[in-house]
């Protein structure tokens, strides 16, 4: 093999194919039926269960686990899909350690929650592996709804609307549907092309047409959608990425972590993906973790996550932080970038230590310079090309609890909209709830 973890600069093929396959294998493997049985037996079937309260989509978790325990995993899957049609993906990517499993009473009792995420995967895999769509459409209503964005929010919204008998057209800017499920998730969380298969399965309900390569603003106009459709749902995500305003940010191999993650996910062969020997990731969220871990898995010798606040403040869960540490990433808190050095290509990054003060974060003046062949920025994403005429809340589209924007006939949900956390599961909930509201309005007209 020509390249290795010690090859200078940014290079592909630092590890052999076999090693890469192992590195990118399913992070949380599927439960075998026996394992699922044992795991399901641990559920206490709590009253008004805290796990359900903690789930953004309010899946009836005790019920679906009891259905697994009693030998009816397909009924369990139906319980899940009733609330969350992307329950298969959520079982893979939800930060369960900060949601249902954190709330599980057995976490309180024994520090070891019921394995809810993997049980959900067991149930949803069982049904989805049959390749059948569990829902059918109601009689056609003759109503047409435009959904912008084929990410979790848009797909969830579209499926619910199709179920109610409305016709849906999804306009999506990318080449493939799925949104962040397709482009934005670490490859080891969604193996075997799961995101794409899940979309195909979801669409099998019928009544949903997807148009790829259709970005709002450039390819399609919101006003046209308003005219041509009975309702519009915006689930456009946060397509813009924040940049580092430091000298040297324009150097080669200083890029978005989001793009890096997408490149890894979309690669047919991991030996083609170039990665630095010394990689520095700036940020403290899930994007930072996903980028850093995958850089290590691709064969980077040193991967550092630099975060400006203390580790407690990182948006990435403790579990994700520990995953990064276990994979050999170095997490350095209290460091903010001040300059990036190099000639044409980045060679190092200089970071300043910070103190949290009552007036906010302050640099201490002390700096450290790290070798860097590649700098990945994971410092937040923003709503790009915000549709004119819609009120914003902060930097996001303002919506009420039903997903209604400030403009009649336009709903929004997912990361682009104000409301819950930027999580797949939250987007699914918001898309679903907007669909319910759209349906209510369409049938009352």
């Amino acid at each position: 093999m020509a390249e290795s973890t010690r090859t200078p600069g940014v290079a592909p093929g630092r590890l052999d194919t076999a090693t890469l396959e192992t590195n990118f294998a399913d992070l949380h493997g599927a439960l075998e039926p026996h394992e699922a049985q044992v795991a399901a037996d641990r559920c206490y079937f709590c009253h008004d269960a805290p796990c359900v309260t903690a789930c953004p989509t309010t899946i009836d978790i005790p019920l679906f686990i009891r259905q697994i325990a009693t030998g009816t995993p397909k009924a369990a899957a139906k319980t899940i899909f009733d609330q969350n049609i992307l329950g298969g993906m959520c079982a893979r990517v939800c930060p369960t350690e900060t949601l249902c499993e954190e709330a599980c009473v057995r976490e309180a009792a024994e520090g070891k929650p019921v394995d809810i995420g993997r049980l959900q995967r067991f149930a949803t895999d069982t049904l989805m592996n049959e390749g059948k769509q569990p829902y059918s459409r109601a009689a056609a209503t003759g109503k047409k709804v435009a959904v912008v964005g084929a990410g979790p929010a848009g797909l969830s919204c579209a499926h619910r609307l199709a179920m109610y008998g409305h016709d849906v057209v999804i306009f999506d800017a990318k080449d493939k549907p799925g949104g962040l499920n397709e482009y934005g998730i670490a490859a080891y969380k969604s193996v075997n092309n799961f995101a794409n298969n899940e979309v195909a399965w979801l669409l099998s309900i019928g009544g949903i047409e997807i148009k790829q390569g259709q970005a709002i603003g450039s390819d399609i106009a919101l006003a046209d959608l308003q005219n041509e459709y009975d309702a519009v749902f915006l689930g456009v995500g946060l397509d813009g990425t924040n940049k580092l305003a430091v000298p040297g940010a324009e150097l080669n191999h200083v890029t978005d972590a989001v793009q890096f993650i997408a490149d890894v996910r979309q690669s047919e062969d991991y030996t083609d993906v170039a990665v630095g020997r010394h990689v520095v990731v700036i940020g403290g969220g899930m994007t930072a973790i996903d980028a850093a871990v995958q850089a290590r898995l691709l064969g980077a010798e040193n991967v550092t996550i630099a975060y400006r606040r203390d580790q407690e403040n990182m948006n990435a869960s403790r579990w994700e932080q520990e995953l990064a540490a276990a994979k050999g990433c170095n997490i350095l808190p209290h460091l903010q970038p001040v300059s990036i050095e190099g000639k044409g290509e980045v060679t190092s990054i200089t970071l300043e230590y910070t103190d949290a003060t009552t007036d906010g974060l302050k640099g201490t003046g002390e700096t450290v310079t790290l070798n860097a062949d590649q700098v990945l920025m994971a410092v937040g994403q923003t709503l790009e090309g915000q549709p004119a005429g819609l009120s914003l809340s902060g930097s996001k589209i303002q919506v009420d609890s039903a997903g209604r924007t400030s403009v009649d006939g336009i709903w929004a949900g997912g990361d682009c909209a104000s409301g819950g956390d930027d999580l797949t599961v939250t987007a699914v909930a918001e898309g679903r709830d907007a669909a319910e509201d759209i349906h209510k309005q369409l049938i009352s007209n």
Partner: protein
Amino acid sequence: MADLTTEFLGIRTPNPFWLASAPPTDKEYNVRRAFEAGWGGVVWKTLGSDGPPIVNVNGARYGAIWGADRRLLGLNNIELITDRPLQINLDEIKQLKQEYPDRAIIVSLMVPCEEQAWKDILARVDETGADGIELNFGCPHGMAERGMGSAVGQVPEYIEMVTRWCKENYDKPVIVKLTPNITDIRFAARAAKAGGADAVSLINTINSITSVNLDTMSPEPSIDGKGTHGGYCGPAVKPICMHMVAEIARDDETSGFPISAIGGVTTWRDAAEYMVTGAGNVQVCTAAMTYGFKIVEEMISGLSDWMDSKGYTSTSEFMGQAVPNVTDWQYLNLNYVAKAKIDQDSCIKCGRCFAACEDTSHQAIWMKEGRVFEVNDAECVACNLCVNVCPVEDCITMEPMAAGETDPRTGKEVVAEYGNWTTHPNNPSVFEKA
């Protein structure tokens, strides 16, 4: 470590844990290993009359029910008595008794209800040097239809008759094993005593069908698409056996009559509970069949630890201690008032107590802000359901109210005096007398 030596009918064994008559005791290989593992004694798998060997089914003999994590709670079987030749069994018994003189070997017997049949086999058993015999009047399947097993145990007159034959033709202890498949165990026990038995052992297995296969519509265990009732045993039957042991122990006619308790003994605690309820020792089968002979080590260490903690130096010191506290409902103290109390520190907030009380009992538990569960004393009747459904042991307890306090449910003062149904003003017979 407390000395567990236990004397039952004059038979001394190093501990009170015997293996019951069943597959674990059907041959030298098993019994030798059981003795090496530490079991105090065995009741050899039931022997029948000399003749053509017993024929068993060639398919599933056992059915079961399970709890969480597939923990075996109840087992049933359709196996018959030994299917090995009589003389081989007798030879093995003789050999093992010589090798293990400090362990009990009791021979279980089941032959037709004719005195000569019993005479014949008793003479041969006597030659083995075994410590005694146990009359199998309990097997509920296969042999019962041939006039043996529970067919005898269900007729007190037969019990008495056969027991008498045995006592007349055999000098060593005779234990009569009773079937639970009757309405009142006391009649069977009284009959055994009247026939001269030295002890009763109980229970044999309970008539049962454990499950039905929903694809083939056959009861389990299934033999070529058909099933039959089998004998049920294991942890699930313990409460039924405990009651029967207690009834015999407190019956005027059989009080003090030695009892060997059999029924779901799985841990040292089960054994201790049986012995304080009137048993002189215990017999174990399902636990050994589930976990192997090694479990006796826990039974020995557990019973010994408990005895040390209570200051008992001999198993005879605690035998029967709970018998005086087994009474009839009408003698329970109706002036006793308790209330459930939830320990907030150990509560894990599952809410099962709330669901149980709210949906199925007395609406006496509040679910407050932040999933805080508290008992409403004004509604609580201390039924204990919350305690029973709580997954955390000792999180919910029943706290007695002191005399002089006012029960917020009834508005009445708790009185110190004992008062039962026989004198209660609501009792129609009391009312009529007045």
